C-alpha cells in the first residue's frame, strides 16, 4: 500500500467507530499544526488525521488502527508545551485528548479523584471546589493544561514546594500502550506501593512516547482557608536560596517559593504597570526577589509570616517588598491569572518575539554558576533575556527547577537556530554542574538523542523500555530519541 492508501484506509476504519470525530479535513489538521515552542515563523507541521475519542476503549481502537497501518500517534492536550512535544513532524494521527474530560469519581472520604485525562486542571478544580478540595498541582497553564498533559511532561506547579508535582498526587493511571492495550498501572488509591516495578512513573514525562494516558487517579487536598503572599529582595541569588532553605528548616510549611532575577520581575508585573503606569521599584542593589506564599488557617498563616520575616530579614538581610501591589501583581500573573484590563501578558508580550526557555535543573549550590552561564551564553547567541525564575518543586526542599527565559526572535531561521544553540549550551552546562537538561518542558522535538549526553548507558536501557511499550515506534515518534533542532553530542 502507498502511504496515501494507508491513510485513506485508516481514516475509513477510524470513521467507522468515531464518525465525524475522525477527520482529515485540512482546517482541522491546521488547527493542530503547532504548540508553544519556538520554531520558524512559517513552519507548519500537519498531522494527517485528527481524532477526538471519548474514552479509553476508543483510544485502544485508534492505536490498533495505527498499529495496523504503522502510523504515528500523537496525543494532544493543552497545546501549551514549549518543547514541541505535540508537534506532528512525522505526520500521523493526532489524538485530541480533551474529548475525554469526565470526572469518573470524587471520593472525599479517601481524598481522591479519578478522572479522564483530558480534563483541564482548572475544570477539575471547579468540580472539586464544592467538596472543599483541590488538586494542588497547578501549572501556570492550568486553564488549558490537562491532567494528562501534566503527567506527559511532568510540568511545573506553583505550589510544588509544599505539595510536589503531579507525581506526588498521582496514584493510578490507565494507559493505552503502543501495543494497543489498555493497562492499569500504579497503586489504586494507596499512596505508595513497593510491589513490582513502578511502571506508572515511566509515563510521567513520557511525552506520549510509550502510550496515551487516558485515566488518572489523584490524591487531592483540602482547600486552604486563607493565603498570604509576600516578597523579599536580596543582594545575591544564593542569599535568596539560602534564606528559603533556612525558612523551611525552621519548620514552616511554605506553600510556594519562587526566586526571580530582577529582569524577570518585569514580565510578572503586567497588572501593576497597567494600574500605576510605571515600573515597580526595586532597590538598585537587589539581584533577586523571592516570593513566598503561606496558606492554611488564618492564625497559622499569620504566625508563619512573622516567623518567615524574622528568619529572612534578621538572618539573611532580605528586605520585605513594602509595596504589596508589586506582590499582588506578581500573584495575579502567576496564580490568579487575572490580567487587567482583561488582556493578558502572553499575547501582548509576544507581538514581536516569542517566549522560549532553557529549563535546566541544578543543585542549589550551583545556582550562581548557572545564572552567570545564562548571562554569558545568552549574550553569545545574541538572545534577549527575559529573566530567570527558580521554582521549587519538591515538598519542603530547596529544589530548583529553573526557567532561563528568552524572547526568541522568530523572524529569521538563523535567529531561531541561535536560540537552539543557546538551549544546547545551557543544557551542557547544567549537566556539567551536576544537573539536568530539562525540568518541566521535556525533550519534545529538541533534546532527543542529544539527551544521551546526560544519561550515558541508561539511555540504552531507555531504548529497550521504549521498544517494550511501543514495539513499532508509533507513539509520538521524533521525540525522546530524535531531535530536529539539536544534534547529538559528538556528531
Amino acid at each position, binding site marked *: 500500500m502507498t502511504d496515501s492508501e494507508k491513510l485513506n484506509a485508516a481514516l475509513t476504519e477510524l470513521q467507522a467507530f468515531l464518525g465525524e470525530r475522525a477527520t482529515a479535513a*485540512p*482546517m482541522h489538521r*491546521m488547527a493542530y499544526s503547532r504548540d*508553544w515552542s519556538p520554531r520558524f*515563523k512559517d513552519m507548519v507541521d500537519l498531522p494527517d488525521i485528527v481524532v477526538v475519542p471519548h474514552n479509553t476503549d476508543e483510544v485502544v481502537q485508534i492505536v490498533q488502527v495505527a498499529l495496523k497501518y504503522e502510523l504515528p500517534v500523537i496525543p494532544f492536550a493543552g497545546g*501549551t508545551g514549549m518543547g514541541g512535544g505535540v508537534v506532528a513532524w512525522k505526520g500521523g494521527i493526532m489524538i*485530541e485528548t480533551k474529548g475525554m*474530560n469526565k470526572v469518573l469519581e470524587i471520593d472525599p472520604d479517601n481524598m481522591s479523584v479519578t478522572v479522564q485525562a483530558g480534563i483541564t486542571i482548572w475544570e477539575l478544580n*471547579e468540580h472539586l471546589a464544592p467538596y472543599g478540595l483541590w488538586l494542588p498541582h497547578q501549572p501556570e497553564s492550568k486553564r488549558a493544561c490537562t491532567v494528562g498533559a501534566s503527567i506527559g511532561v511532568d510540568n511545573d506547579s506553583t505550589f510544588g514546594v509544599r505539595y510536589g508535582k503531579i507525581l506526588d498526587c498521582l496514584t493510578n493511571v490507565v494507559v493505552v500502550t503502543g501495543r494497543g492495550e489498555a493497562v492499569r498501572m500504579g497503586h489504586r488509591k494507596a499512596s505508595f506501593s513497593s510491589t513490582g516495578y513502578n511502571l506508572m512513573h515511566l509515563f510521567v514525562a513520557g511525552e506520549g512516547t510509550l502510550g496515551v494516558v487516558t485515566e488518572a487517579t489523584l490524591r487531592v487536598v483540602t482547600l486552604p482557608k486563607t493565603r498570604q503572599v509576600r516578597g523579599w529582595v536580596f543582594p545575591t541569588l544564593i542569599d535568596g536560596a539560602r534564606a528559603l532553605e533556612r525558612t523551611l528548616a525552621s519548620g514552616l510549611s511554605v506553600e510556594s517559593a519562587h526566586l526571580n532575577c530582577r529582569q524577570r520581575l518585569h514580565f510578572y508585573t503586567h497588572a501593576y504597570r497597567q494600574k500605576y503606569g510605571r515600573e515597580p521599584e526595586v532597590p538598585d542593589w537587589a539581584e533577586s526577589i523571592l516570593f513566598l506564599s503561606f496558606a492554611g488557617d488564618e492564625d497559622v498563616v499569620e504566625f508563619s509570616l512573622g516567623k518567615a520575616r524574622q528568619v529572612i530579614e534578621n538572618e539573611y538581610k532580605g528586605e520585605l517588598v513594602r509595596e504589596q501591589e508589586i506582590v499582588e501583581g506578581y500573584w495575579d500573573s502567576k496564580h490568579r491569572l487575572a490580567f487587567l484590563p482583561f488582556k493578558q501578558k502572553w499575547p501582548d508580550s509576544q507581538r514581536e518575539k516569542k517566549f522560549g526557555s532553557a529549563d535546566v535543573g541544578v543543585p542549589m549550590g550551583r545556582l550562581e554558576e548557572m545564572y552567570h552561564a545564562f548571562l554569558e551564553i545568552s549574550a553569545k547567541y545574541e538572545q534577549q533575556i527575559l529573566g530567570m525564575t527558580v521554582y521549587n518543586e519538591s515538598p519542603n526542599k530547596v529544589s530548583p527547577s529553573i526557567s532561563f527565559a528568552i524572547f526568541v526572535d522568530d523572524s529569521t531561521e538563523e535567529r531561531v537556530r541561535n536560540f537552539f544553540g543557546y538551549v544546547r549550551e545551557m543544557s551542557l552546562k547544567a549537566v556539567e554542574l551536576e544537573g539536568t537538561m530539562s525540568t518541566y518542558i521535556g525533550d519534545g522535538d529538541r533534546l532527543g538523542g542529544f539527551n544521551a549526553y546526560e544519561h550515558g548507558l541508561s539511555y540504552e536501557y531507555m531504548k529497550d523500555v521504549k521498544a517494550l511499550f511501543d514495539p513499532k515506534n508509533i507513539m509520538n515518534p521524533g521525540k525522546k530519541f530524535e531531535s530536529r533542532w539539536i544534534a547529538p553530542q559528538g556528531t
Partner: protein
Amino acid sequence: MADYPILQEFTEEIYTCNRTRCGFCSVECPVFRVRRLETYASRGRMLAARGLLEGVLEPSAELQEVMDECLMCGYCQARCALHNMDIFASVRQELRTAGYSSPKHERTATKILEEGTLFDRPKPIRRVGTTPLYLGCAYQTKPHEVQTIVSVLEKVGIDPLISDEVCCSYIVGAVGFADEFESAQARFRQIYGPHLDGAILTVCPTCTATLHDEYNLAAKHALVAVAERLADMDLKPLDMRVTYHDPCHLGRMLGVIEEPRQILRALGIEVVEMEHHGTFSTCCGGGGGLLDVDRNLAIEVSKNRIRDAAAVGVDTIVTACPTCQPTLLRGAGRMANELGHFVDVLDLWELLDKALD
C-alpha cells in the same frame, strides 16, 4: 501569501496568537465545550486564518461551516489582547468574497437589507412619549414583553417614545456582509434620524452594543436607567434565589454587569453566581447567527449554560435579553430529564414589574 486584503490587516495579530498558544481562550469557549476540537476555539480558528493567509488552506464550504459555528460572543477576546472577533468576522467576509457563505445567512441578511427587519412583525409597536426607546427586531415581535417593559419604565417615571424603527443590522455585519452593513447603517440613520442626537434607551443587548459601538450613538440600556432610580423606588420584596445570566453584549461588551445585580438585590433576591459570569460569562447559544446555521449545536451550548446554573445549586436563571431567554429555555427543556428538575429562565423586567405592583 494568498490575497486576502481584509484578513491581511490582521496578519501580525494572527502570527502573535500562533506564536503564543497560551490557550486561555480555548477550553471555556462555549462551542469548544461541545465540539472538543481546537478548530472550533479561538486558538484553532487563528491557525485556520493563518492557513488561509499562507495558502495552506483554500476557501471551502467546510471551512465556512466551521467559521459559521462561532457565537461571536467575545469570550475569547475577553481573555486575550488580540482582536479575535474582528479577525473571525474578516475570515467570514473573505470566505463570502470567495463564494462561500451560508444560504441561511444569505437569506437573513437579504431579508434585513430588503425589509429592514430580522423577523416578521405582525404590527409595528409604537408609543407616544418623551424618551426615545428603541426596541429592535426581537422585541418588536414580543408585544407582551414590551408592555411589561413600558409598564416598568412608566412606574419609575420614564415616559418612553417608541417611534418608527428599522433593524440595527448587527447580524448583517457579523456574518460577513461588511459593505451591506455600511448601507444598512445609513438607512437606520435616515429612519431614526430625529432621535440620533440625544440619549436613546434600548432593551435588546445586541442592539444596544451595535448602536453604541458601531453607530456611536448615546444608546443606554433601559435597565441602567432603572438602576439609577432604585433609591426612589418602592419595591415589594420577592423571596427568590437565582443566578443571573449576563447577555454577552450587555455584560462583556458594554460593561453593564453590576446594574442588573443591584436591581435583583433591591428586589430582595439572593443572587448566586455561576462560575462564568460578568465579563467572563458564556453565551446562551443564540449568538452570532448560530441558531440559523446549526440549531442543534446552539441547543447543546444552551444546555451547558443550564448545567452551569445547576452546578451552583439554583433552579432559576434570570436574564435580560430577548435572545438569551428563549434560547436558554430550549436548553432547560432538554435538560430537565438529566437534572431531574426544570431550570426556569425568567426575564428581569417581569420581576421588576411584579415588585413594582
